[in-house]
């Protein structure tokens, strides 16, 4: 009865299978409610999304803490709800995870003679990272290498970070029984081996299930459109779309980088509803870019696979890798990613 959406015990992390269950959405549907988020049900991509709120200029709630998310490459996972997790016991969890890691290392994974692998675990709460009050505060897991007695360097070195979060994840948490904590989005930075160990411990301890978050070309094009429209203070970097054509005798990659002012000028004429973006608008934006390209090269970009999107505020790849570049838009991007994670879980 307590299983919920969990699929069972898995001790290893599952890699992205690349198939996010988003059905092609019909672009001519009527728009969603202006100030309520359109719900993505059963993996269907919404016909409209509310734009993230404009960045608050005094969003200084300890920028140090959220700054640790910026400019790093994060691998994304969706996580099913955690059973009987409590943020009052973070210290205990740190100890238990630390013991687990030590035990795993003892099992004989890459042992280097003479090097002491003393991994310190710190689990903390990041209340700044949430969208609404219903959201659970984010949980940060950090692994550092404790300096060995013989080492001259007395500083701890951060070797791996993981962050569970939920930004505007009401879709999932709405009807969740009390015992479950909803933090559907997980970000990992650092060696894959540690991600695997930490993930296994959480899966065993809280009966949850991690899965690599794949980002479909459809969702990548949403990101391209939405992020292009964001106002950036400093000189923005180009809007870059990377397309891959793997099925030819020789693989081909096409990088299409547009001057940020020109991209934004195009988007501003396409996007007509204030505060909201529709599927139709995203389609028109992408079609414009495709037809400009086709005019020059006679190649149909729509027949290729969009694999990466890079803008001044963030970059995202189809295999679920993200990089946050602007602190003011951090929550907005996390909101979109939370939605994708929930979509993958349901």
């Amino acid at each position, binding site marked *: 009865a307590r299983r919920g959406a969990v699929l069972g015990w898995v001790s290893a992390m599952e890699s992205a299978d690349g198939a996010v269950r988003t059905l092609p959405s019909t672009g001519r549907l009527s728009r969603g409610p202006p100030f309520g988020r359109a719900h993505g049900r059963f993996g269907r991509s919404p016909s409209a999304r509310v734009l993230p709120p404009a960045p608050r200029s005094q969003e200084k709630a300890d920028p140090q803490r959220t700054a640790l998310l910026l400019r790093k490459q994060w691998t994304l996972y969706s996580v099913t709800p955690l059973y009987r997790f409590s943020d009052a016991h973070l210290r205990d969890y740190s100890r238990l995870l630390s013991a687990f890691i030590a035990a795993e290392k003892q099992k004989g994974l890459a042992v280097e003679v003479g090097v002491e692998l003393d991994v310190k675990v710190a689990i903390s709460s990041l209340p700044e990272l949430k969208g609404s009050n219903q959201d659970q505060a984010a949980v940060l897991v950090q692994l550092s290498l404790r300096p060995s007695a013989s080492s001259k360097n007395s500083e701890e070195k951060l070797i791996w970070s993981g962050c569970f979060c939920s930004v505007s994840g009401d879709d999932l948490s709405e009807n969740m029984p009390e015992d479950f904590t909803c933090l559907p989005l997980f970000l990992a930075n650092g060696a894959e081996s540690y991600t695997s160990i930490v993930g296994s411990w959480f899966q065993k301890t809280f009966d949850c299930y991690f899965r690599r978050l794949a980002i479909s070309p459809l969702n990548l094009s949403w990101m391209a459109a939405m992020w292009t429209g964001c106002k950036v203070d400093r000189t923005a970097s*180009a809007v870059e779309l990377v397309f891959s*054509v793997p*099925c*030819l*005798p*020789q*693989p*081909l*990659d*096409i*990088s*299409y*980088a*547009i*001057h940020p002012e*020109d991209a934004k*000028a*195009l988007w501003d*004429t*396409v996007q007509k509803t204030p505060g909201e973006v529709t599927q139709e608008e995203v389609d*028109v934006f992408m079609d*414009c870019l495709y*037809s*400009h*390209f086709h*005019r*020059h*090269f*006679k*190649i*149909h970009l729509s*027949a*290729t696979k969009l694999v990466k999107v890079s803008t001044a505020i963030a970059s995202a790849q189809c295999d679920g890798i993200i990089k946050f570049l602007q602190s003011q838009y951090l929550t907005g991007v996390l909101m979109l990613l939370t939605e994708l994670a929930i979509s993958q879980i349901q």
Partner: protein
Amino acid sequence: MDVAVGEYIRRTVLKIPRDEIRTVLQKWGFLSEAQLQSVNFHQVKENTAREVVQLCEENSADIKQAAVLDIIYNHIYAEKRMWSVYQMNRTGEATEIFYLTDFKKKIKRRLRSALKNVTVTFREYEHNAIWIRIAWGTPYTKPNQYKTSYVVYHSQTPYVFISASVYKSNLPLLCQALVVASNYHDIREMELRSHSLNSLKDIVFKRYSQNFQTYCPRPLQDRNVEPESADLRIIQENRSEKERIQRVNREVFGDGPQPKIEFAQYKLETMFRSDPKMDVLDKKEPFRCLIKFSSPHLLEALKSLAPAGMADAPLSPLLTCIPQKARNYFRIREKKGLLPGSFVSP
């Protein structure tokens, strides 16, 4: 033998794949056959390298011989470097007779008088190819054998292939030396770069099969050796369109293998034009983009796009002109006053 020379030889040998070391050393010819017999080439590379250095010590190798070994290595593994193409011009029609000794003397003299400390080594290969290796120093420091540039000059042509190094500031001096030594007036860099030296040669020496417009009297069916399927239930749809695409592709790309280049880059400064019904961007300024195509074998990949249904046939001349124009970097601006859709490439 100088310790630094020994170290340089050791590092050069380590770069060579284990199974090729013997062959390369034979080409070098500095160690006798008997000496080569005494080396165990089937052990760990580090040990083989040490044995080789030991023998070089016995033969009192100096930097000149070490430099020759390096040229031989780079000649065999030329694709590890990025090559740029330069074209020299001379006024007057008279073809000057090329004197190799004169050429070598002039190059050495020019470089030494400017920098005092340079190691210049020459080696001749077939088809009048002269390889030049330059290790750069300054008037106050010895030449750094690890900071080298390589030049390949085919004496009967105006083309020079250069793989520069980090010391880009030495490039003008190098170009000047080449122009003076080969009796030309000036030199300019072409917009053509690749790892494949042979493909660059194919392109500038027009050694690929060019797409001449040929009148083909035989009906196409005779040429297509595709066997008819024995099963009458299988019908080929769009047969005539498929054949048209094949024919046009052949006309545009030629029949033979394409020169091997890995990328092409287009800086677009053309206007954005759209269907007036779409009511989008209608700026009077260019829509600035930077487009990069990359592939292990770009031209073959492009050639396969139309048959795969991802591009129109014929493919845009912007792409198919790469071998003829001998360039893979382009800047495309709008042609003024002429029909829309025509581009000019400076």
